[in-house]
Each structure stands twice: as C-alpha cells, then as structure tokens.
C-alpha cells in the first residue's frame, strides 16, 4: 500500500468516526432533555402508584402522615427473604396506627410471591395484598385482589384469631380456604402472612420508633 491510499483510508475512518460521534452526542442530548423535562412527572406517577396500593390497605382518612416517605428498611428471616424490604408506617397525630410491611412468600407454586401485609398497631391484620407473583394465570392468580376475594379473608385476623395451629389452609387441617387447584399458592400466602404477624409482634416497638433513614 502506498502512502497516498493509506492517508485516504485513515481520513475516511476519521470522518466516519466523527459522523458517528455526532449522532451519538445528538441522540444522547435529546434523550437527556426528554428525561429531564419529564422526571418530576414520572416521580409523581410512581408515588401515586405506591400510595394507591397502600391506600387499599389503610384508608387515607386513617392516617395524617406521608405514608410513602415514613419508611424504614427491615430485614428478617420471618419476612421470607435475606434482602432488605420496606415497612411503611401510618400515624395519626403522631400515634402509630398501622404498619404496612413488605414480605415474601418464598414457596409459591412458581417462585416468590411478594406481599404487602398491613397490621394495625394492636396486631390485627388490616389487609394483605399481592404485589408481584408468577403464579399460573387463571388458577393461582386468584390471590390478586381484583381476580377473586380470597385475599380479603385475612382482614381482622391476628395471631390468636384463629389459633396458631389453625393458621393453615383447610386441606392441612386449618381454618383458611384454599383456592381451588392452587393449594400450594394459598399455603404459601397463609404462611407468609402468619410469619409477618409474628415478626410484627416481636418488633412492634422498634417498627414504630425507628427513625426514617435519610438517603
């Protein structure tokens, strides 16, 4: 190769690199601009979504604090995971009303079931909701609140109501209905809810007094 072709090749390469670079810069700039101008809206959406989920469990008039920021990080094997989970606190006039604790049922039919368990300050269940799961559509997904009313049966239950040995699905001799054809799913949710109640009982004081950690 003589010197002339060599310089043409390197010149071409340079031009191509510059063109590509310009496109990358313009593209990134556009994305950054759009991201920046919609950032607040997306944050608001996320917040509204979390609040909507929480307000299904604790009615808005039951508390006067910011549910979605009065959060602590909890970690315990009773909550079904060795990862950090969130606990939301509801208060009225600075008195604890309820805690909404994230927990995981590790033994669902197809993997983990993520739950929100809301417990009144006196230890009674205010409600349970499933937030994430991979159960079979049409069978196990009856644990979702809008698919069936099964999940509502937990409301007003507590550690002593029913008794410890009755905290099982009926097939295992307990007091809870199982979802037809989804006994494993039902069993997992019942067990996780019971464990969370137990966790609440052991850590009640700390759950409400521990200050919010600033990020």
């Amino acid at each position, binding site marked *: 190769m003589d010197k002339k072709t060599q310089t043409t090749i390197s010149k071409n390469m340079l*031009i191509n690199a510059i063109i*590509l670079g310009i496109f990358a810069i313009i593209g990134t700039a556009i*994305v950054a601009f759009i991201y920046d101008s919609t950032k607040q809206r*997306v944050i608001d*959406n996320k917040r509204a979504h979390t609040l909507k989920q929480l307000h299904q469990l604790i009615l808005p008039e039951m508390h006067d604090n910011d549910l979605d920021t009065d959060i602590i990080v909890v970690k315990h094997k009773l909550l079904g995971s060795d990862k950090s989970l969130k606990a939301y606190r509801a208060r009225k006039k600075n008195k604890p009303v309820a805690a909404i604790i994230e927990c995981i049922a590790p033994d669902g039919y197809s993997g983990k079931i993520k739950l929100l368990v809301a417990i009144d300050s006196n230890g009674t269940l205010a409600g349970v909701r499933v937030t994430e799961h991979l159960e079979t559509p049409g069978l196990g997904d009856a644990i979702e609140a809008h698919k069936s009313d099964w999940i509502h049966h937990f409301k007003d239950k507590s550690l002593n109501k029913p008794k410890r040995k009755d905290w099982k699905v009926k097939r295992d001799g307990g007091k809870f209905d199982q979802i037809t054809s989804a006994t494993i799913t039902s069993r997992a949710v019942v067990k996780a809810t019971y464990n969370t109640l137990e966790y609440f009982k052991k850590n009640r004081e700390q759950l409400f007094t521990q200050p919010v950690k600033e990020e």
Partner: protein
Amino acid sequence: MNQTREIINNGLWKNNPATVQLLGLCPLLAVSGTVVNALGLGIATMLVLIVSNVTVSLIRDYVRSEIRIPVFVVVIAVAVTIIKILMQAFFYDLFLIIGLFVALITTNCVIIARAEAFASKNNVWLSAMDGFFMGLGFTIILVMLGAFREIIGFGTLFQQMNLLFGEGASWLKIVIVENYDGFLLTILPPGAFIGLGLIIAVKNVIDNRQKGTEAVSLQQTAT
C-alpha cells in the same frame, strides 16, 4: 399516487410485518393477551417506526454507507427511549404492564428492516407513510390477536381500556360471557402462537383464492 397505494398495500396486506415478514414476534406474542395491551404496544411500535423512518430519510444523504447501520441503531435506540420515557410520564399504569416490551421494540427487526430497505432510499414523506402503514399493519394484527385471546381467554372485550384512554373509557368493557372461568390455553403463550397461526392461515386462503380468480380470468381472456 400509485406509490402511496403501493405503500398502503405493502404495510397492511402484501408485506405485513406480522403475517408475512414475521418480524417482531416476541412482543407480538407476549403482550397480545388483551386488546388494550396489544393496542398500547402497537401504537408505541408505530410511533417508533415513523420517527425512525423520518429521521433515517432526513439523514440519508449525509451518512456514508459503511456506518449507516450503527447510525440507524442509534436513531432507533433514541426513538424507543423517548417513547418509553413519555409513556412512563403519561401512561404509567399501562407502562407497568407492557413497559418491558416497549424497551424491546429496539430489537424489533421490523424497524431496522424498514430503515434499511425503505427509508434510506426514499424521501421523507414516503418514509413517514411507510412507517405509519407498516406500524398500522402490525397494530391491526396485534389487536386482532388481542381480541381473539381476550374473548376466549377472559370472556370479555376491551377490558381496562382506562389504562390507555383515562378513567372515562372503563365503560368500553364488554362482558361477552358472564361468570366465565377463563380458558388458560389462550391466555398463556401457546394461545398467541395458535392465534397468529390461524390469522396467517386465513390470509393465505384469501391470497390463494385471489390468485385462483386471477388465473381464471387470464385464461378467459386468452381464449
């Protein structure tokens, strides 16, 4: 005018991305469980196609052929990211359901195929038209599949339309079968394959019939 008709025919029927080119099947199969999901992803894909076709057509004289593919990739990635962000901002509930697949539009071969085969050789107006009709062809098949799976799988039509059109649209839901137990096969992915197979089969039957009549009329004129 003829060219426009050709573009429309190509996008909607002759070269339909979903039934003929069979491109972009991953999202097609994954989100066609209900009409609203299908429509959401269809519109998102259409928007990406239009934006990418127009941009590629605008820059076609400035990009050398050696680096055109990486430039197209940048253009498509930018278009998809923007649509994803806008969806997060304005249709958050729908985004929670189909968000994952919106990001996957980047990998939908239809888009780079149209950029390379059409937009890089045609003017802006025609490229925009091509993007629109290719997107429309994709959306129509997606929605047909969604309707098929929703009716048989859930016994309803247009459920949760509020995700796309606001709370006012909830009334659109039509319960076709009361107290329907659901039909698991059509809700799960195999249902999508079967549904798409049926749609392609129907299209082929129509095409063959048309060919048949054309052949007959040719014979008649010959004799």
